[in-house]
């Protein structure tokens, strides 16, 4: 059954209509892969789903209830990962994870331990994040998803800068998340190691002169 869905969404960036008439549905335990060339609106769609960007048309629903009716609840059940890692260089890996957990109103050291182990960060836990490589910072950002769990993951090119082992770790954490009934929407150019329904954004691109 479809848990998270969007109907007839349209999004505008500046003067340009990025996509229109876009609908999607994600069931519990399912993954939705956003595909499309640069500028086709993958990031915009993910930001719409997260509520960071307001679509100019269409509705999104969770469990058949429009998410706009309860934006707070929607924020609480999603975790968004954008292009930037949001990792503070001055804090250690462990502090970075603990911080976001606290900000989400949680306190669960075991979950942080699992997150560090799940992404192979165990040895780096006490290191200031400014010493990390781009791939390691990305791992910390992904570990945040495990340290403060939520059912809906919105991931914008999550495997950027990851090595093969990192991609394997990511595939494993997504599989575990889905096995527990979690939802994943992700955009990717390469192979993220995740199988799922594909949404090709190029189909919803609007020709330049349709809208005025």
């Amino acid at each position, binding site marked *: 059954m479809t848990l998270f869905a969007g109907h007839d969404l349209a999004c505008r960036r500046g003067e340009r209509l990025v996509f229109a008439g876009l609908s999607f549905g994600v069931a519990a335990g399912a993954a939705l892969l956003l595909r499309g060339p640069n500028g086709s609106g993958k990031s915009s769609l993910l930001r719409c789903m997260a509520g960071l960007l307001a679509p100019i048309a269409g509705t999104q629903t969770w469990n058949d209830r429009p998410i706009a009716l309860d934006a707070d609840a929607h924020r609480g059940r999603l975790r968004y990962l954008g*292009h930037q890692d949001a990792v503070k260089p001055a804090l250690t890996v462990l502090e970075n994870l603990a911080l976001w957990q606290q900000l989400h109103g949680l306190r669960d050291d075991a979950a942080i331990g699992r997150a560090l182990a799940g992404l192979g960060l165990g040895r780096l836990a006490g290191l200031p994040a400014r010493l990390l490589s781009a791939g390691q910072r990305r791992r910390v950002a992904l570990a945040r998803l495990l340290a403060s769990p939520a059912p809906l993951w919105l991931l914008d090119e999550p495997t950027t800068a990851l090595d093969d082992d990192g991609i394997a770790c990511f595939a494993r954490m997504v599989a575990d998340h889905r096995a527990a009934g979690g939802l994943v929407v992700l955009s990717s150019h390469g192979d993220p190691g995740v199988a799922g329904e594909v949404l090709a954004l190029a189909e919803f691109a609007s020709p330049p002169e349709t809208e005025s």
Partner: protein
Amino acid sequence: MTAFLALVRRDLQLAMRQGSDAALVLIFYLLAVLLFPFGVGPESNILARISTGVLWVTALLAALLAIERLFVSEYEDGSLDQLALLPLPLSLVVLAKVLAHWLLTGLPLTLLAPFLAIALGMDEAGYPVLVLALALGTPTLSLIGGLGAALTLGARRGGALLALLVLPLYIPALIFGVAAVDASLSGLAATPHLAILAALLLAAIPLCPWATAAALRQALE
């Protein structure tokens, strides 16, 4: 509430770790105030007469100097997205960041002021009211400055634009802050002026974070 305090603590911790602008602001304040005896001349009665104004105007400029970068690093490293998605309302996120910022800059400025007042030869009767007025006024400056910082986020030459936006809004706090100290120096009651400063602060506490949050959402779109 725990999330609010965690955010304040985080900002303080980050500032301590990476040596924030806070120390620079205090040094700026010190130097700017100490320039006046050189510029105006060492004649103590002139210095004493302008001391209140000097201390307030430089405090205002120092506050402006520091607030510009309030959201820049959050914006650049993607943390602002994450902050906007917290269960905590964005306006409270803003309030927490402004509070941390005030603890790092406004509070030390307030505590430093009486020592600079000595250097300017201000009559010591004015010290308590000077500290009190700055304690009530600088949080308002931080709150208004935060709004300006959010509005200029992502703009080129944000700093100059920020000054244009924010300095006019600082005028009420300046007027009543100076009036309070002058009143106490001439033996009049400072309470009415302090009450107005407090009223400005009470108005700024709900209004500025709310408007700042709206500006931040705009910046995130």
